[in-house]
């Protein structure tokens, strides 16, 4: 556990970058520092590996003051990832990744083997090993940065806006990858970002800092969304915090209607059997059961083949209420389409049904004090 204990950092010019900050960073999870530009995130992070020394207060790692061991050996036990990756342009990808193992005195072969293994772990093809950083895309470079930080298997990883320089799609991939790697390796990760969505997506705990380096709130993301400590945090979370909060409620309990689902080759009798007064539309699937689109029941009976697009589906049992609601909102018919893991339609849900489920979930949460159906703080569909 890393304990930041009443730490203050004042720069010589008088700026107070961090102000009596106390944070307990639990082992084996991702703790995100988030806040507007200049609020002291980087300063806090860099005090953990002593790139910056605090003016007051102290930081302990597993109970021992971090000043007790030599600074460079401390840093070699903490992976460090920065924006643009900071890769060494004069070294190949394997050499870059092998940097810290080599610093720790591993022999060349061992370090290399380890580097190749890590390339795989972060999703880089081994054929890139001999390339130089300039021959990689931004997203690939960032993966190398993560691999380099992981190389000596440090218990702690410090990451300063590692994904902010890549485009949203690549960023999402990197975030997923980080969550996966964290699940596999159980590192203690301190992650700095100014993007609240990123914080909520990847964080087990989120520390919101405000200008002047003061802690505004320190909580799991679901709690942050449901109970922001004050107006600042609420503003910082943005207007759609209610919608985003739905990410933390599973759609598993959602009641699905299986009646209005017909295969594309259905006979007139089958169509008639599936047409009920509550649903003027029928969901047409292919012969495998995958949804094709909505059809007006009367027109279909009259022989029309016209289909209305269904937007996108959500996966029953896995996705959150947010995904279900989104699916319903985007669907021209106002109905969400649920599919199973194989993409076969398993039911449809009306907006009203989803709204009822949301109300139930909120009530349940108030009763138990935690997000319903979700064991820990991770969003259901990140």
């Amino acid at each position, binding site marked *: 556990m890393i304990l930041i204990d009443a730490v203050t950092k004042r720069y010589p010019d008088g700026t107070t970058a961090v102000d009596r900050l106390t944070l307990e960073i639990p082992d084996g999870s991702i703790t995100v520092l988030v806040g507007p530009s200049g609020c002291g995130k980087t300063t806090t992070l860099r005090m953990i590996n002593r*790139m910056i020394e605090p003016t007051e207060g102290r930081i302990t790692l597993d109970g021992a003051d971090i000043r007790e061991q030599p600074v460079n050996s401390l840093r070699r036990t903490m992976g460090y990832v920065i924006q643009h990756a*900071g890769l060494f*342009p*004069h070294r190949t990808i394997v050499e870059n990744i092998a940097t810290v193992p080599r610093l720790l005195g591993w022999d060349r072969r061992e370090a290399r083997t380890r580097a190749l293994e890590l390339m795989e772990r972060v999703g880089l093809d081994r054929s890139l090993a001999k390339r130089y950083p300039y021959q990689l895309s931004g997203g690939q470079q960032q993966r190398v940065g993560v691999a380099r930080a992981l190389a000596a298997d440090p218990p702690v990883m410090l990451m300063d806006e590692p994904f902010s320089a890549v485009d949203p799609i690549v960023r999402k991939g990197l975030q997923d990858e980080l969550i996966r790697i964290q699940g596999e390796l159980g590192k203690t990760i301190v992650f700095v970002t100014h993007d609240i969505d990123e914080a909520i997506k990847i964080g087990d705990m989120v520390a919101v800092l405000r200008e002047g380096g003061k802690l505004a709130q320190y909580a799991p993301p679901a709690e942050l969304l449901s109970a922001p400590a004050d107006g600042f945090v609420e503003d910082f979370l943005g207007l759609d915090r209610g919608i985003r909060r739905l990410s933390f409620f599973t759609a598993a309990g959602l009641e699905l209607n299986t009646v209005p689902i017909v295969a594309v080759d259905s006979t007139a009798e089958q169509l008639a059997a599936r047409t009920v007064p509550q649903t003027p539309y029928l969901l047409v699937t292919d012969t495998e059961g995958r949804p094709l689109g909505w059809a007006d029941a009367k027109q279909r009976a009259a022989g029309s083949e016209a289909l209305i697009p269904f937007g996108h589906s959500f996966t029953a049992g896995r996705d959150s209420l947010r995904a279900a609601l989104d699916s319903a909102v985007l669907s021209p018919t106002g109905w969400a389409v649920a599919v199973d893991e194989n993409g076969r339609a398993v039911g449809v849900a009306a907006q009203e049904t989803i709204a009822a489920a949301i109300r139930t979930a909120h009530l349940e949460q108030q009763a138990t004090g935690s997000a319903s159906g979700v064991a820990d703080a991770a969003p259901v569909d990140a």
Partner: protein
Amino acid sequence: MNLFHYANVFFSDNANWSGADGIPTRLWEHVQYTLMALGIAGVIGLPLGLVTGHTGRGGNALALVATAARALPSFGLLVLLTVLMGLGLTPVMVPLVALAVPPMLVTTYEAIRSVDRSLVDAARGMGMGPLRVMFQVELPVALPLILSGIRSSAVQIVSTATIAAYVSFGGLGRYIVDGLYQVDYNKVVGGAVLVAALAVVTLGVFWVAGRVLVSPGVRRQQR
């Protein structure tokens, strides 16, 4: 009468190819002066540039030293030291070294300063000490620029080492100074051609050095 004619006469005279005043001897003398001056200047300029660049301190003092060294007239210095100390290697070396130090010093400093700060940051964050940061990160990344500084020093030494002949020293300058006094243009042109050729060879040596020493990852970035 044109330059090619002079050069042709000079290079086709067999007498110019052997003996104490022969081309091989003079060329070798010139190369020796050059290497010696470059070596001394390197020992002074490179570490100083490296350390000031790394710490980022003393940049102004360094610029001052470089300007002062540049301001010293090589030829004047040569004559002054010769008048004071008599004939010797020192009066020849001092001006050459004074000439070669500023480009090395200033380029090395600038080159190290221009290394992306986030690289140094990453290196420190991974637990590299100052020496490692300097030799494993800053130096290799700054190398192309540093080499260009040494290269321009080397070329200047090659061309300026000719003045050694003015105080009865050897080297390719002999042909130029002797040619001037004997009004023998063949010699002057021949000497000048040899010096220029040596300079071009020097450029070639540095090109090769760049190929061998500079990491392809950095070399490519320069383009």
